[in-house]
C-alpha cells in the first residue's frame, strides 16, 4: 500500500542507512545509548561524585585510617589494598546501570525506544557499555591517586594491561547483574538500595581489604570462594604485589576469574533480556 509521504515545508525526508547485519545495528544502537548515558554522568553532579570522588575517598581512608592497623604478610598494605579497591569500586560502579534502567522503565522514554526500528537489546547493552567507560575513567583516577600514596605494581606492561582488561571484564559482568536488579524492582529508590545492598557483604567479606586468614573459620570458607576475592587475587598476581603468590597461583586465580566473569554473563545477560521483554510487553 502506498501511504502518502508527509512533506513538511521545513522538512526533508532523510533515508535511513540500510543493509547492515542485525548484530552490527545492535552494537551501533548500543553505542548511541551509551553516549546518552555517559553525557548524563557528566551533567549530574551526584554522579560525578560517585564516579570520581567516592573512589578517591576509599583509597585515602583505607590507606591512612585502616592501613596502619592491618598487617599483610610479606608486603606493604597499600600494594595489597589497591587491587582490592579496584575490584570493589568497579563492582559498585555497575549500580549506575540498575538506577538508570529503573529510571528508564518509569519514564515514557522506554516506549519511544520500543517504537523505533532499533535493536531492543541496545537499551540494556547501552547502559552496561556506558558503565565500562565510566569505570575505566574511575580506574585511571584511582591508579593516579594510588601512585601518589605509594602503590607500586611490578611485572610487565602486558601483565599490567591484562589487569586493566580483567577489571573491565568485572565491570561488564557486574553491570549485567545490576541490569537485572534494575529491571526487577519497581522504583528508582529500590534500584538504589537493591543495587548496593548485596555488594556490601560480597566486597567486605572478601580478600579485597584484609587477608582472609584473619577472619573466623566459617567466614573464611565464604570469603575464599567469593568472586571478589578471586578477582582481587588475580589482580595482585598480575601486578606482582603479593610476594607469597607463585606464577601458578596467579594463573589459577586468573582462570577462576575469567570463569566467574563468563558465568555471570551467561546467566545474567539472558535473564535481563527476558525480564526486559516481559516487563515492557505489558
Amino acid at each position: 500500500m502506498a501511504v502518502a509521504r508527509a512533506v513538511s515545508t521545513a522538512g526533508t525526508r532523510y533515508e535511513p542507512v540500510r543493509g547492515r547485519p542485525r548484530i552490527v545495528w545492535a552494537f551501533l544502537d548500543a553505542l548511541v545509548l551509551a553516549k546518552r548515558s555517559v553525557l548524563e554522568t557528566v551533567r549530574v553532579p551526584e554522579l560525578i561524585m560517585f564516579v570520581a570522588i567516592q573512589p578517591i575517598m576509599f583509597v585515602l581512608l583505607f590507606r591512612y585510617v585502616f592501613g596502619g592497623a592491618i598487617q599483610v604478610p610479606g608486603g606493604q598494605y597499600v600494594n595489597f589494598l589497591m587491587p582490592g579497591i579496584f575490584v570493589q569500586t568497579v563492582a559498585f560502579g555497575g549500580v549506575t546501570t540498575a538506577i538508570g534502567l529503573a529510571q528508564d522503565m518509569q519514564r515514557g522514554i522506554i516506549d519511544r525506544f520500543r517504537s523505533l526500528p532499533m535493536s531492543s537489546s541496545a537499551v540494556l547493552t547501552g547502559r552496561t557499555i556506558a558503565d565500562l567507560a565510566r569505570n575505566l575513567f574511575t580506574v585511571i583516577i584511582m591508579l593516579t591517586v594510588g601512585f601518589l600514596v605509594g602503590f607500586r605494581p611490578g611485572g610487565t606492561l602486558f601483565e599490567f594491561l591484562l589487569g586493566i582488561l580483567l577489571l573491565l571484564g568485572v565491570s561488564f559482568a557486574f553491570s549485567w547483574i545490576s541490569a537485572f536488579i534494575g529491571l526487577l524492582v519497581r522504583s528508582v529508590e529500590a534500584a538504589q538500595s537493591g543495587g548496593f545492598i548485596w555488594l556490601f557483604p560480597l566486597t567486605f567479606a572478601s580478600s579485597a581489604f584484609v587477608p582472609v586468614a584473619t577472619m573466623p573459620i566459617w567466614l573464611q570458607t565464604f570469603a575464599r570462594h567469593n568472586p571478589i576475592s578471586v578477582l582481587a587475587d588475580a589482580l595482585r598476581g598480575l601486578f606482582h604485589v603479593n610476594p607469597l603468590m607463585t606464577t601458578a597461583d596467579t594463573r589459577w586465580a586468573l582462570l577462576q576469574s575469567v570463569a566467574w566473569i563468563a558465568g555471570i554473563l551467561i546467566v545474567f545477560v539472558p535473564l535481563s533480556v527476558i525480564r526486559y521483554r516481559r516487563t515492557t510487553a505489558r
Partner: protein
Amino acid sequence: MVTDHAVHAEGLVKHYGRVRALDGLNLDVAEGSLLALLGPNGAGKTTAVRIFTTLLEPDSGHATVAGFDVVRDADRIKSQIGLAGQNVAIDEYLTGLENLEMIGRLYHLAGRDAKQRAEELLMQFDLNDAANRIAKTYSGGMRRRLDLAASLVLLPPVLFLDEPTTGLDPRSRRQVWGMIGSLVREGSTILLTTQYLEEADELANRIAVVDAGRVIAEGTSDELKDRVGGNRIEIAVAKDADLARAAEVARRHFSSEVNVDSTQRRISAPSKNGTSQLAGLVRDFDGAGVDIVDLQLHRPSLDDVFLTLTGHQAEEEKVAPPAGRWQRRPR
C-alpha cells in the same frame, strides 16, 4: 490485505488480568486525515495506541498500520510510524539537539543526516534558541514540542499522539494544536487520543467516541452533534424570585419542554429557529421585569454527545476533573 486506511482495527480485545481494556474495538483512519479517539480515562485509548505502535500484542482481533500487520510485521511498522506518548519521552540531561540527534541515530539515519534533521526540527518547532540547553531546563510546553519533534524525525506517514496536550497551559496547547494542524495539512495521517472534547472538535476530521474498550459512535463533529439534537437556548436569571416568571415566558416561546434548574437559576430549551427567536425572547423578559444575567444559543457540545451516547458524564469515574476542562464552550 489492501485497504485505503492508514490504520485499521477489527475486533481488538485486550485484557489486563480480569480487566477488559479493549472489548472488540473497530476503527479506521483514512489516509491523510486526523482521527480523534475521544474518551474518559480507562476507556482503552492508550491500550489501542500501544497495540497500533507494536508495544503491545492484542489478545484477539487484528490491526494494520500503513498496510502492515501489527503482530506479524511489527518490525516493518516501526519505520512507518511516529509516537508521542502520554508521558514526555525525552532525556532530561541531553540538550534538545542531542535528544533529536539520538532519535535520528536510532532510526538509523547517517550521523550527518541525524544532525541536520535535528536542526531542522528545532527550527520548525521554535526551539532553536534552546537547542543547546539540557531539556531539564525546558518549560512544559517546550518539552511537549520537543517530544512531538522527536516523533517526526523520520517524517513518518502515520503518527500516533497519545494525549498530546495533557498538562499544558492554554497558550502552549494552542501552539501544539497549530503544529498538529499543519502536519495534517501537509499530508500526515494522525491518530490522536484525547479527553478534551474541545481538542477533538478543533483538530479532528473524524471523531471516534470510546467507552469501556469499544467505539460507541463515530463521525464528524457535526454528525455527532446532530445525533443529540439541534441548538439549545440557555437563560440564566439574576434572582430566585424571577425564575418562575421567566419559565412562564420561556414556555410561551418554546413549544417543547422547558428545563428549569432552580439551583443554578437556569432555564434551557431546544431551539428550532435559532437566533430569530432571541430578539422576541429578550423583549418579553424585559416586559415581564425579569433580570437576565446570561443568554446563550449553543450547538450541543461533545460533552452533551458523550452524555447522550453513554448515559454518563465523560469524566464520571475520575476523582476530580481539573477546573475548567469540562466547561462548555459558548458559541
